């Protein structure tokens, strides 16, 4: 009839919960490896429950067979879950994107269609009707980028010629009021019983008294009485008013083969808020006219009833109207590095939200820190900086990791000591990367030129090179930590920092005492005449000399109480954070702890001292303030301007002739005039007793 049209079925839609990909990745990494044999999986769907949105065939973590060693995430999906009707499927996962695209989709679809066809003919589909909605999934899981390419197919046996639609209307318009009430009640009962809630195909039998019963499709024979209306019902995921859902396709195939019906009245069962909704559900009548003429080909007069004659199949899922696979990226929730980064950020943000709203996380994460020395102080400072969110760290050290180091130098392990020992700078960078993959750490294997250690002429070029390199390093960083093990090695860095007005923090250890201080601003850093805070050398009356020669063994070796380095390193980093949050930064005045100075109450991080000196023997700590000295061998304007004028030539001269610095700064004069007064100098040189690490 011209007015008749074919039944147009709405395609099944897929939805993959990210839990499925998580579980699959784990399965692939732990168990499957490169094994790409097909994996049986289970899909879940439920009848449509919303007038504007279709339901999907969903894959969850539970869709995959469980790993023996993996904990099941939620309560097992035992039978009878009304919202999760299980449907069998198969997964073909390839190991490369090329093989993914090269899969023979036609034959894969045909193979699954054949399974459905077989189940129809053997009667399995009558017993376990969910197999009618068997599906296929092909995928390529890229476990380096955490992206998943995939494509679903919902095999449907093609009726040829297609079924024609005689009638399709809302179920509420088809049934009488009484019938509708009874049908709803019967369906709700079916849906509420754990035995049948997840059975997606059923029969609705309405007797002449408008009493409806819902039965298993295997009980078809019992519904054959005159006067009874018989409808073939199925859970319809589709919401559309003019189209039945995909499961009806194979249902019609089953009905045609098993019971040879030509006219099929069907019920597209849909719900709303957990109850049967006959306004949303559809009732229709389809005519199946698969000709027996097909038998002419096979010669046995059976046509569709011939098991051997597999019909064509369609069913690859369209992706927004196009025939392409889908791709999902789960890097954000699966890539461990990204997870580590967001966890670290969270920690700092919590600090800001709950305790310190003025915390400047951006300044911390963009600050570039240069650490001179990768020993006990250097390792601890690096770790503390990372904890504060500093990501850019450069470590300079020319030594190798020695067997005694891992105990006190927290970035190294025994492996770093083997075979002569890795370079500390390199080992430290690797270690930082293992702690926090997103750190931007660099190691520089280089010695720091020192006054008092004269340079032989053949080495001069190398030393000049090192000086220039150090100059460039200081230039390219925002804060410099002096964490070396001798006093004289701090001279050149101090000078370079004073020259470029960089934030400089020194930490030095004695046997049971420590000094942590921030250097004042450079001598040419501002126009006003205010006193600058001093640097590490400002209180010296002698130029830095070779402190390592002619010392006894125990004085040369790094012997300090182990607790000192972590304490001093921690204070050094906290001091830096304090400077960063102080409105005057490097120019901030030195404050004293426990003072009535009102300025300290305003700063949310508290007091910003100049120097902290602590003693473990007393478990005490005190803050001091020292002004810069005009005769300082490292940061005075005399010295810095000499450097600015004569550059490396000046450095070499200072390195080779330490008294040169004393002459230059007038210390020599000072000493002469002092001794001429015959005063008793209280030899305030506890610094000399410090054997720094």
């Amino acid at each position, binding site marked *: 009839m011209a007015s008749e049209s074919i039944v147009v079925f709405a395609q099944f839609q897929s*939805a993959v919960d990210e839990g499925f990909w998580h579980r699959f990745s784990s399965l692939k990494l732990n168990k499957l490896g490169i094994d790409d044999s097909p994996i049986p999986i289970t899909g879940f769907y439920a009848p449509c429950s919303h007038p504007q949105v279709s339901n999907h065939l969903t894959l969850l973590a539970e869709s995959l067979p469980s790993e023996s060693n993996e904990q099941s995430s939620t309560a097992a999906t035992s039978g009878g879950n009304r919202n999760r009707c299980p449907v069998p499927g198969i997964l073909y996962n390839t190991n490369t994107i090329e093989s993914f695209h090269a899969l023979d989709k036609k034959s894969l679809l045909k193979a699954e269609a054949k399974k459905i066809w077989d189940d129809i003919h053997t009667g399995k589909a009558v017993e376990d009707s969910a197999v009618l909605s068997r599906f296929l999934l092909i995928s390529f899981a890229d476990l380096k980028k955490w992206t998943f390419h995939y494509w679903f197919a919902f095999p449907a046996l093609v009726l040829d010629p297609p079924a024609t639609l005689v009638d399709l209307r809302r179920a509420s318009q088809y049934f009488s009021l009484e019938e509708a009430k009874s049908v709803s009640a019967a369906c709700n009962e079916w849906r509420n019983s754990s035995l049948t809630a997840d059975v997606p195909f059923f029969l609705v039998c309405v007797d002449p008294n408008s009493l409806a019963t819902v039965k298993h499709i295997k009980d078809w024979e019992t519904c054959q009485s005159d006067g009874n209306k018989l409808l073939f019902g199925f859970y319809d995921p589709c919401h559309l008013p003019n189209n039945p859902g995909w499961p009806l396709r194979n249902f019609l195939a089953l009905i045609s083969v098993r019971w040879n019906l030509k006219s099929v009245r069907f019920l597209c069962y849909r719900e709303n808020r957990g109850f049967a909704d006959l306004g949303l559900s559809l009732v229709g009548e389809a005519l199946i006219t698969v000709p027996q003429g097909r038998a002419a080909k096979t010669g046995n007069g059976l046509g569709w009833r011939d098991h051997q004659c597999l019909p064509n199949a369609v069913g690859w899922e369209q992706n927004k109207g196009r025939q392409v696979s889908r791709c999902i990226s789960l890097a954000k929730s699966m890539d461990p590095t990204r997870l580590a980064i967001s966890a670290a950020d969270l920690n700092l943000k919590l600090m800001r939200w709950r305790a310190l709203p003025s915390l400047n996380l951006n300044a911390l994460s963009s600050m570039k820190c240069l650490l001179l020395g990768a020993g006990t102080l250097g390792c601890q400072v690096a770790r503390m900086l990372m904890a504060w969110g500093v990501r850019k760290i450069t470590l300079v050290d020319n030594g190798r990791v020695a067997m005694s180091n891992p105990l006190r130098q927290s970035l190294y392990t025994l492996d770093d000591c083997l075979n002569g020992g890795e370079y500390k700078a390199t080992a430290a960078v690797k270690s930082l990367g293992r702690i926090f993959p997103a750190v931007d750490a660099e190691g520089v294997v280089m010695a720091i030129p020192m006054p008092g250690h004269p340079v032989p002429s053949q080495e001069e070029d190398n030393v000049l090179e090192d000086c220039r390199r150090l100059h460039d390093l200081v230039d390219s960083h925002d804060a410099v930590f002096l964490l070396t093990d001798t006093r004289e090695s701090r001279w050149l860095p101090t000078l370079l920092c004073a020259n470029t007005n960089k934030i400089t923090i020194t930490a030095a250890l004695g046997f049971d005492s420590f000094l942590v201080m921030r250097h004042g601003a450079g001598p040419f850093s501002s126009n006003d005449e205010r006193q600058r805070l001093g640097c590490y050398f400002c209180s010296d009356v002698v130029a830095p000399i070779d402190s390592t020669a002619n010392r006894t063994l125990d004085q040369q070796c790094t012997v300090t109480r182990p607790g000192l380095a972590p304490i001093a390193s921690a204070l050094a980093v906290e001091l830096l954070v304090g400077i960063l949050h102080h409105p005057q930064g490097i120019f901030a005045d030195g404050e004293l702890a426990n003072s009535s100075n009102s300025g300290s109450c305003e700063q949310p991080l508290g007091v910003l001292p100049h120097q902290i000196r602590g003693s473990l023997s007393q478990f005490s700590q005190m803050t001091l303030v020292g002004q810069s000295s005009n005769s300082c061998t490292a940061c005075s304007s005399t010295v810095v301007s000499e450097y600015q004028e004569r550059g490396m030539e000046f450095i070499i001269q200072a390195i080779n002739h330490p008294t040169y610095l004393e002459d230059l700064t007038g210390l020599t004069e000072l000493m002469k005039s002092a001794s001429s007064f015959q005063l008793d100098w209280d030899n305030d040189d506890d610094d000399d007793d410090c054997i720094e690490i």
Partner: protein
Amino acid sequence: MSTKEESRGTLSSTDFGVAASAFILNWNTICSSFPQWTWVLSHHQVEGYLSLENILLSSTQEEHGELSFPGPGKHSHQEDPIDVDDATLVHINPCKVHYYDLHIIYCNSYRVPVLYFRAYDNDGEPLECDEIEKDLPAYSKKALSDSKWTFITQEEHPYLNRPWYKLHPCGTSEWMKLLFHADDDALAKTGVAIELYLVAWLSVVGLVVGLRIPFEMMKQL
């Protein structure tokens, strides 16, 4: 619930279980037309949590088209033509749909319930925090930005081992204290403090994620 806990705004883990059962009963009775909360047991079968899943939200956001499909060379591959027959209707949802899952999980260290949630589109692709915020009604966005009690963080779900968003619990006991202190005597008399804990809690927390508690439930408070 001990008065000590009550005065601190916290509750014990057993009390949480009691509160949860009462809550489910309440909700599923009063709000029978709403999606129902269920109690899910953890894999150890000892602890559990409240779950409300697949809440559908028709988003006002536009279809992002190509943006939904990250990955290199996604459309560069020329696919073989796939058989499609006339009996197939391919329909595309006119509105972009977002699904939400909500879990209420007890936090041992803070001794309060915590709301965990996640959102995803109809492909199953998870939504980002900023996309979720676009879905929230105006009053939630305000609550999030103004209040120092409420902020969204992303952390590992205690049972599902995947990152979920959650409303950080560090401020919960503070404002629960206020809620309960408001009517101390009345609650002590009726002795239903525990049962109402979750309703009270969700009435505040729910606002932040745009979940309104039906008035009938609030009446009991």
